């Protein structure tokens, strides 16, 4: 009995950490410039495909290609900022909607492009150091790719926290606090934004690579994860790293428990239900500034 | 003179910082009252309490004998309190006339009378020629006028002006002063918040000086300028700011 409970709880934790990392990138960008990136799930999907391609054609193990894909996504993030977001920020009318729909259009475009290049069918990475392996500790089965993914997520979170303590992190924080004043103290706002996008994309890239180790890869895989990520970010509080971590794990657990006790197909309903309830009492999320 | 507004022992703190402590004063019908004080004196907090935007922790505010504190800005507007904003808040998707019509609808259900009232108000405020311009297209002094017009369109008994004259050139300020006198001549009571004493004192019948959240003194402009406490509070503030 204990083993079953543990199994459920650990399963929730392993998935929750992935959710948390996907959400962290979204939260970072939002906190920095008040933009919700509706193409976030598609960035994750691209990272998964990058992992798939590197695995299939270069025989790289997902763990090995982490830095490569993270770097690729960083570049893509910067590119998206420079090419689209900077423009969206500069419009003088209807800015809120323009931001939503520019990133949304980008999401559709990326999804279409992925379908064009890779086709619509599901793919998966099924060889590698950890692929398909499980460890068993005290009657609890631990799928190793997921364990590795969770560990990487924790490391990535630690990395994000470390970055937030560096010079760049302080510049990020200052830019978030007062977007106009930072120009006065010699911070190049545009550059910070671009780096923020790079970092946000790299973060979700890391999550995507690790996810590709045990999850199917397809052009529409991002949509579902993105929705969970929005809920995670809103639940944790936009812009809060800690909030993303706590909310991500919470959502993973709620899903696991619902699936075990009630009905797997309803697991998201209870997640969304809890989100709505929390918003009743804390309209800006668990860790959001009121 | 009958008291139009009575502020009674109002206290308010934000996150442990006291913005207003035991503030009491009365505003007589028809007068122009100045609300002055150095930065951080609690003017904005008090102003927002009268406008209904902020609920006092203690004490109460009465408009012609009826309690209005804690009832919210909508009720305050309905009871006859109009206000402007320090940082202009125009409705930028609308024309100037449409902006003022939003205010006029507070007293008129139907569009035709609301439009007529709004046009008259615009005329009164000297903005009639700008009626069909988009609101964002106005110059800064015109935007301040628009705020006054919008508030006047709600037919207020009491008009709250938040730093309406600050930052204007002398000529612009002069026409602003004229507008305020015209409004008063219509029988509207006015409270003006200003940071700079020199702007307000020539205009008001009495002024309330706030310092560190408390009422420092209340009196006529002559009494205010001679009061040593006022001078100290202001000079101290200037030295601190320098």
């Amino acid at each position: 009995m204990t083993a079953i409970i543990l199994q459920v709880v650990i399963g929730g934790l392993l998935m929750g950490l992935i959710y948390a990392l996907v959400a962290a990138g979204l939260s970072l960008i939002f906190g920095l410039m008040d933009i919700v990136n509706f193409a976030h799930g598609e960035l994750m999907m691209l990272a998964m495909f990058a992992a798939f391609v590197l695995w299939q054609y270069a025989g790289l193990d997902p763990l090995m290609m982490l830095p490569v894909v993270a770097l690729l996504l960083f570049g893509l993030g910067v590119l998206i900022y420079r090419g689209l977001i900077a423009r969206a920020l500069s419009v003088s009318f209807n800015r809120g909607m323009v931001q939503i729909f520019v990133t949304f259009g980008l999401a559709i475009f990326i999804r279409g492009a992925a379908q064009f290049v890779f086709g619509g069918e599901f793919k998966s990475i099924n060889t590698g150091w950890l692929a398909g392996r499980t460890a068993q500790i005290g009657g609890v089965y631990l799928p190793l790719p997921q364990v590795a993914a969770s560990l990487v997520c924790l490391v990535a979170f630690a990395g994000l926290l470390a970055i937030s303590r560096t010079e760049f992190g302080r510049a990020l924080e200052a830019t978030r606090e007062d977007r106009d004043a930072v120009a006065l103290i010699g911070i190049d706002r545009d550059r910070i934004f671009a780096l923020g996008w790079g970092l946000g994309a790299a973060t979700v890239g890391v999550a995507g690579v690790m996810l590709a180790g045990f999850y199917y890869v397809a052009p529409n895989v991002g949509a579902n994860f993105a929705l969970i990520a929005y809920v995670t970010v809103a639940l944790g509080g936009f812009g809060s790293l800690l909030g993303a971590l706590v909310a991500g794990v919470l959502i993973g657990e709620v899903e696991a428990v619902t699936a075990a006790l009630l009905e797997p197909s309803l697991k998201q309903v209870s997640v969304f239900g809890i989100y709505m309830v929390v918003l009743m009492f804390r309209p800006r999320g668990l860790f959001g500034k009121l | 003179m009958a008291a139009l507004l009575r502020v009674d022992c109002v206290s308010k703190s934000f996150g442990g910082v006291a913005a207003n402590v035991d503030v009491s004063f009365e505003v007589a019908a028809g007068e122009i009252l100045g609300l002055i004080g150095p930065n951080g004196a609690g003017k904005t907090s008090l102003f927002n309490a009268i406008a209904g935007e902020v609920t006092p922790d203690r004490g109460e505010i009465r408009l012609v004998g009826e309690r209005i504190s804690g009832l919210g800005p909508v009720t305050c507007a309905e009871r006859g309190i109009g206000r402007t904003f320090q940082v202009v808040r125009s409705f930028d998707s609308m024309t100037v006339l449409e902006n003022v019509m939003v205010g006029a609808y507070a007293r008129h259900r139907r569009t035709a009378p609301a439009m007529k009232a709004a046009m008259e108000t615009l005329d009164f405020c000297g903005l009639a020629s700008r009626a069909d311009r988009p609101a964002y297209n106005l110059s800064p002094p015109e935007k301040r006028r628009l705020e006054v017009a919008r508030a006047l369109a709600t037919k207020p008994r009491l008009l709250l002006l938040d730093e309406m004259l600050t930052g204007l050139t002398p000529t612009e300020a002069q026409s602003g002063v004229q507008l305020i006198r015209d409004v008063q001549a219509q029988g509207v009571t006015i409270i003006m918040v200003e940071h700079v004493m020199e702007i307000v004192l020539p205009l008001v019948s009495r002024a309330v000086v706030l310092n560190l959240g408390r009422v420092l003194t209340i009196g006529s402009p002559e009494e205010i300028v001679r009061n040593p406490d006022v001078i100290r509070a202001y000079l101290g503030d200037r030295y601190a700011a320098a």
Partner: protein
Amino acid sequence: MDNRITRRRRRELVVGAVLLVALILLPLPIGDVYTRNLIIISILFAGLAQAWNILGGYCGQISLGHSLYFGIGGYVSTLLFVQAGVPPLIGMFAGGLVGGLVALLVGWPCFRLSGHYYAIATVVVAEIGYLLFLNWDFVGGAMGVYIPFKGDSWLALQFRTQKLPYHYVVLAFAAATWLAAWCIEGSRWGFSWRAVKDDVVAARSLGVRVFPSKMAAAAISGFFTGMGGAIYAQYVGYIDPDSTMSGQLAILIALPAVLGGVGTLWGPFLGAAVLTPLSELSRSYLGGSGRGVDLMIYGLVIVVVALARPAGLLSLFGLRRRAKGAPDGSPA
């Protein structure tokens, strides 16, 4: 009173009437079913976008969950017809009413949220609805409900081969949404809603009741969206969660309004006239291969229009406002 506002409103009414006549005549010379279908879908989405515009455009509440009201409206009229024999011509009003009611239920918690929190909450609420319908056996679960054909009838909105009657049904629907928007624009409600959109604090200070304004806008918007869902279900003869309640659909409803010109009378129609044929045509000519070229084109159009014409395609025509000068670039 004769001034620019009243003159403009009268002119809009005239243009609306002319357009209505043109659209009544439009399908008559067109024989082929494909084109007629395209026109019907475009007009339906024009009406849906206008319904969205009432809440999103005039009141500024960016709902990304209108698929919920659309789907529920469709289910209500369908189930009333299939289970209780209520003719859809009446059922679609029931669908609209329930849609409006649900919009009020959603608004109650969600309107306490602002900005992105609101937008995401609407996505989530719609997703909850979608998942519940997907798992609810009474409404057919993922399989959905087929609407049995009971013979050509206006009351049942069923026509075996003809497209023309549907054309007039969706046209009446779109015209009704337009008329509603026109009435709102010139009324106290419309002014209050736009004030709420532009600046909540200033609106309150002028006596505008913010929450009731949002609720009223949501109810009307939800009503028309639900009605559109009912018409759609009757048109395709089938309803399931994927085709009527998906998040994708919520975007399809909002998009024409946003890209056409949000908060304007003609923007949603213009947006639907451009976007719906574009998406349908690219899907049938390029999407057949399943290679995603249609999605790429569609996504690209959204990005380009949103960036190049932030005020919407309508601003190309210089109709109303923003003819010169940037909104924040007031002359010093």
